[in-house]
């Protein structure tokens, strides 16, 4: 890609020496995010507040997980289209288990724990199948995961029969909507348990600090970001995505590694599905119109990955998701209709790829 641009608008060698431009090219997404935060704080009513930042991050919590799993796959040179529907499948199955166990008289604690763990385990199966198809049977990732896209969706639909799964133990909602700490000007600090407030202005002035789901997500992301950037497993992932022949010659067990990658992606989707149960207090199948997999791919690319593989990071992906979420929320707070928000996300995605193409030396020269 880089060669064709040598004689274009930019003299890459010269720009490569400029430290400022290099910094800009490498961190444009982050800088853009900061600029957006500043801009929206002036333009949107009540945008700059702790509660709104909670809204933003809770709004993108599913996408954070889905995109991080997708990052592993994209870095290895593949693609996983099934994640959105695997999330819906896990959301439905784990909520059904919680509901039925609770109805059968088991304690809420046992029902919730079993439902969550069963959901996480079941969520690994699509990944194993995807990985086996891609690595052993040489089905192109696009097709293999497109197949799983349909299967997971159909299963979720069959199990839920189109109805949202309700009647879960009440504790599900309390866990999913809790924060680590609360501060009320009236009642002071409290941890994990929301203070009882009746007055509208007291409820509105309640500061909520770090949602519990975000704590979990951060925990998972830190572990996997470490795996990707600091371990041999991570290095192999980059190697396979960079040049698969070289990876094989270097003695990497590529098929086994790829299966693990798809299982990781599926695990992230399953985690998102279980968290969604807690967040919505309900099991819902994923709608066709949600396009989770496409937004996840967009976030990974905005975060600096290339669809040809070998590049990208978890934290870049997180920035990508934050960018999409902040853009959406900010434009919403400004009162812009949804149509324009789609256009804006589309533009950002294209800009990301353009920067990736025009500044390759800057972005990836360490």
């Amino acid at each position, binding site marked *: 890609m880089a060669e064709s641009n040598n004689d274009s608008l930019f003299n890459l060698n010269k720009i490569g020496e400029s430290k400022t431009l290099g910094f800009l090219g490498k961190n444009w997404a982050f800088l853009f995010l900061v600029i957006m935060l500043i801009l929206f704080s002036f333009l949107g009513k009540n945008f700059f507040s702790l509660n709104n930042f909670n809204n933003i991050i809770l709004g993108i919590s599913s996408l954070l997980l889905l995109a991080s799993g997708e990052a592993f796959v994209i870095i290895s040179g593949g693609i996983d289209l099934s994640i959105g529907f695997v999330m819906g499948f896990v959301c439905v199955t784990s909520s059904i288990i919680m509901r039925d166990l609770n109805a059968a008289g088991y304690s809420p604690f046992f029902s919730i724990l079993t439902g969550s763990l069963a959901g996480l385990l079941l969520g690994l199966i699509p990944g194993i199948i995807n990985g086996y198809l891609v690595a052993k049977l040489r089905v192109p990732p696009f097709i293999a995961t497109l197949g799983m896209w349909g299967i997971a969706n159909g299963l979720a*639909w069959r199990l839920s029969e*189109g109805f*949202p799964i309700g009647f879960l133990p009440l504790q599900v909602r309390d866990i999913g909507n809790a924060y680590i700490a609360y501060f009320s000007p009236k009642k002071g600090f409290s941890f994990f348990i929301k203070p009882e407030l009746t007055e*509208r202005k007291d*409820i509105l002035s309640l500061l909520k600090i770090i949602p519990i789901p975000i704590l979990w997500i951060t925990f998972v992301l830190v572990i996997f970001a470490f795996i990707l950037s600091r371990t041999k497993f991570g290095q192999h992932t980059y190697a396979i995505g960079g040049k698969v022949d070289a990876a094989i010659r270097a003695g990497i067990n590529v098929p086994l590694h790829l299966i693990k990658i798809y299982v990781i992606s599926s695990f992230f989707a399953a985690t998102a599905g279980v968290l969604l149960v807690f967040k919505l*207090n309900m099991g819902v199948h994923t*709608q066709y119109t949600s396009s989770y997999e496409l937004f996840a791919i967009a976030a990974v690319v905005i975060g600096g990955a290339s669809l040809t593989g070998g590049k990208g990071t978890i934290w870049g992906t997180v920035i990508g998701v934050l960018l999409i979420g902040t853009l959406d929320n900010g434009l919403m707070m400004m009162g812009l209709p949804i149509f324009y928000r789609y256009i804006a996300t589309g533009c950002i995605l294209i800009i990301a790829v353009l920067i990736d193409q025009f500044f390759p030396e800057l972005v990836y020269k360490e």
Partner: protein
Amino acid sequence: MKKIVITILLICLVLSFVSMTCAAALKFAFMPGIADPFYFTMEKGAKAKAAELGVELIVGEYPKAWGPEYQVPILKALVARGDIDLLFTAPTSTEALIPVLKEIYDSGIPVITVDTYLGDGDYSKPSNYNFPLSYIGTDNFLGGQVVAGQLALLLGGKGKVFLENTNPDVSSVMDRELGFRAGLKIFPDMELVGVEYCLDVQETAVAQVSAALQKNPDLDGVFGVNVFSAQGAYQAVVSAGLEGGVKIATWDATETLIEALKRKELDLILAQMPGEMGSLCVEWGFKYLTEGAEIPRKVIPGFFVFTQENVNDPDSQKYIYK
């Protein structure tokens, strides 16, 4: 080889005669609009009535998404059986389904549209879409007005409200929005502060209503136009800790929403009568085919309004979608 082919053809011919003679009962086909509780309940209502009248009911596969591109292929396959006496369907486009249903009608199968309609839904005047026997369904505009009135009543005729809609390209929910806007105009102190579209994704609805609450901390009410937007709306209000403080009106009485109403997290549910609609389709179709009865060109089964007061009444229970 020739003999085998001829034998197979003969067997097929005989079998088809057998199946034709066996099928003395009327066969009605139902083609739903999308896989959701609303149409499932409609099917149940239709099935119950069909069993009562001895009609065989064949139900087309539920389309996974809303739109002619999903519905038409299934519809064509359904009608291709060739032994159907009457079709009732929810057309997923007011325009695109006109030629498709006209072709079916011309092949001798009477058509009833249910829940959604062709053209403007008025089959009594001359037009290229007035061939269906009847439109049996809800008047969404009227329903929107009813919700606006009931919400204003709950708020004492004064307050800021927000509308959480689903798809800006679907006639039914847009009619609800227009009706809601028109209904609010009657109350000079009621203000609509915003409208969002969640595309049927509940998680998006949560984010959108959360943002609306952030933008308008003095919001008094939300109207969620269908099951996903309403459940998203109430989840956002619960998450902000404002349950009870923000009145939530919704459309469609699913079991989960009824449960939320009982827990006082919702305040108002406008129930359509999908079971009733399905039942009416079978009943009127049966009367038309057996007695040659004249069917009204438009049948509106009406609404039922669930509130926290009447939700536990035995008489209300039959309006819950199951």
